[in-house]
């Protein structure tokens, strides 16, 4: 029996990082260190191409990030959510403007649930990037679809899609949109982003390192990926995966903010001494560190539960998203406050992390909504009306 299996036999899954995960982390960190410095990230937010497609290609194809969750039989790496979560920690640390979460996790989870081998194979090697068209702020429960289908003109295969979806993350660099749409049947439809009936407008977003887009569908041609309950399950699986892996991304954000804060407290001198020697400030960063150690356990547990198809996964994901949303936000806000004036400037990286943290704390369900979900999941019912 492996050490991991023995730990599982003793109760909870392995919450540490395995050797393979540590190697993957090093590779991703090295890539992002070379090509994703914060000056470049900041500069890119003020250009028309807010996503770094070259960097995404390197992460997705060269490092195999796109295919982590995809089985080897479909051309992927056959890894698991444990590895995907580690990559997300790194993209969070670097506030990397790449659609890893939207394509390699959320859209991929929907396709895995729907068992769509054709698209999975195209996503696996990074050749195609996909996005599920639900509002980033949705979750943890799937919203009612705002797009609908109509039958194609006689003689043409497939479906036509109409409607609008607001505030979608990671859709701007996508080649294929996965659209949940009402109609008979309700289903999940694959629509080429370049179709004449598709219009994606970039949104001026709070977090420009993950720029949102508004989608208008006006007779776009779609292929049905799944329908009915299969489609609903696929969307739900995608939202669960999104919340779980976003939690690990938030952990990375929190860790990086804590590191920047600690470094500054050591270097900045006032009253003739480093400000990090003041107990009032020490205690604030110590509390952030404590929160990070707690959140890490929750994020690892969520990733392990999804990797092992554990029945406790819904509880694990709610715990992780709640804990990591809170700590990322707190770490970023403390980072700003403890940097003082410089932290409030455009010229300092803190605002990139603060905006990522605030936006992510709303993405795939707020901490409050995830805790509210625990009322049902853990038998903690509210007041009797």
């Amino acid at each position, binding site marked *: 029996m492996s050490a991991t299996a023995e730990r599982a036999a003793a109760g909870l899954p392995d919450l540490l990082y395995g050797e393979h995960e540590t190697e993957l982390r090093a590779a991703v960190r090295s890539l992002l260190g070379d090509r994703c410095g914060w000056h470049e990230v900041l500069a890119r937010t003020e250009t028309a191409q807010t996503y770094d497609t070259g960097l995404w290609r390197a992460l997705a194809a060269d490092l195999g990030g796109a295919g982590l969750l995809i089985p080897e039989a479909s051309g992927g790496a056959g890894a698991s959510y444990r590895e995907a979560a580690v990559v997300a920690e790194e993209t969070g640390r670097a506030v990397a403007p790449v659609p890893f979460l939207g394509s390699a996790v959320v859209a991929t989870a929907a396709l895995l649930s729907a068992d769509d081998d054709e698209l999975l194979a195209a996503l696996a090697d990074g050749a195609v990037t996909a996005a599920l068209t639900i509002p980033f702020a949705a979750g943890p429960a799937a919203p009612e679809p705002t797009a609908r289908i109509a039958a194609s003109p006689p003689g043409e295969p497939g479906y036509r899609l109409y409607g609008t979806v607001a505030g979608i993350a990671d859709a701007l660099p996508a080649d294929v949109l996965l659209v949940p749409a009402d109609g008979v049947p309700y289903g999940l439809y694959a629509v080429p982003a370049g179709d004449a009936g598709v219009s994606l407008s970039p949104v001026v977003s709070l977090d420009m390192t993950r720029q949102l887009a508004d989608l208008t569908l006006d007779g776009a041609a779609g292929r049905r990926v799944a329908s009915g309950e299969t489609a609903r399950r696929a969307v739900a699986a995608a939202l669960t995966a999104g919340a779980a892996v976003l939690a690990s991304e938030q952990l990375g954000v929190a860790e990086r903010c804590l590191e920047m804060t600690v470094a500054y407290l050591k270097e900045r001198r006032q009253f003739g001494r480093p400000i990090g020697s003041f107990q009032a400030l020490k205690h604030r960063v110590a509390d952030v*560190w404590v929160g990070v150690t707690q959140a890490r356990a929750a994020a690892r547990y969520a990733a392990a539960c999804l990797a092992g198809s554990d029945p406790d996964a819904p509880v694990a994901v709610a715990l992780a998203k709640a804990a990591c949303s809170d700590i990322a936000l707190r770490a970023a806000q403390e980072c700003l406050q403890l940097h003082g004036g410089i932290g409030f400037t455009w010229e300092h990286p803190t605002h990139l992390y603060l905006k990522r943290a605030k936006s992510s704390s709303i993405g795939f369900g707020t901490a409050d909504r995830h805790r509210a979900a625990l009322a049902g999941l853990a038998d903690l*019912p509210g007041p009797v009306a």
Partner: protein
Amino acid sequence: MTTADDLRSEVRAFLSEHDPASMDRLDFLRERYDAGLAWVHYPAGLGGRGLSRHLQPAVDAEFAAAGAPTNRPERNGIGLGMAAPTILAFGSAEQQRRWLRPLWTGEEIWCQLFSEPGAGSDLAGLATRAVRDPGGEGWIVTGQKVWTSSAHLARRALLVARTDPDVPKHQGLTYFACDMTAPGVEVRPLRQITGEAEFNEVFLTDVPVPDADRIGAVGEGWKVATGTLMNERVAIGGAAAPREGGMIGSAVRAWREHPGLRTPGLHDRLLRLWADAEVARLAGTRLRQQLAAGQPGPEGSAAKLVFARLNQEISEFEAELVGDEAVRYEDWSMKRPEGANFYGRDVGYRYLRARGNSIEGGTSEILRNIIAERVLGLPAEARVDAGVPWKDLPR
């Protein structure tokens, strides 16, 4: 590699030759220790087999299933959680042989003589003196210790005393094991806000301590004490528990049993506390996995901080929830319990007892200093006692 299954077979083989139903309880425990099935992560010859710590639960479960007697770990928390790892890390081979077996079987309860009336958070400033016995091999110890749990039950104590007042405070300390039955040791109960006396004051008056009972070198006491304290924080904050174990358990039961007491505000608090308690449990599990994998992290201090905060917030919540029941109190009479009881008795007791959790075993403020300075590497607070011989410090 030895697996949990191998160990289960070993336990069954041991049980086939040692019937727990017919054997004397202590004889059974001593034989179990000698068979290396006491704590498998300890070395061979000292009750273990040099295996990973995470294999222990399988062994304990197998013994429990056979109805074997336990070593009543709840009676000897300081012995098992703090004294044993300290003796293992810093004791001589002779001390390990002499002390660990009766410690593990529970024949000898240990307590901890660290804090003093004048040395709490600033433990290194302690004033209890150990001087060489002019007529013999050993030491003569004089001073006063306080907050000593289980001193009235203990056979031995972990003791830190000042052996050199002429050097800065951290450098003049030496660590000993003190025999609590030695002449000059006087234990007096110290009554606490719950009405009972879990703690004691211990007065040491010319107590003889053999040099053979010194742990670590003369002047190295601070290093040894720091090791003990780190184990204490792991023991307090990193204990294994099931979901809804610990303080959240009674709060959640009350919530489910009394729908009429629920309000929206309390519901929000319950969801937060339940989530935080469960995350803390996961973090405690992760901490133990790190220890088992030989990657001991500094997370013990985090676990202890969170444990204290949650115990306080949950017991505050539970008292508000149950109302009526919380404004009554079971019993204020003075008692001397056998060990610390955080989660028992009534809600008023739990609320009061939890106030101590952020003070005992290192205040939450000192733990934050430790995290900031030792984990995060922030510069030390400007201090007036650095480099000053202990005897010249203002007191």
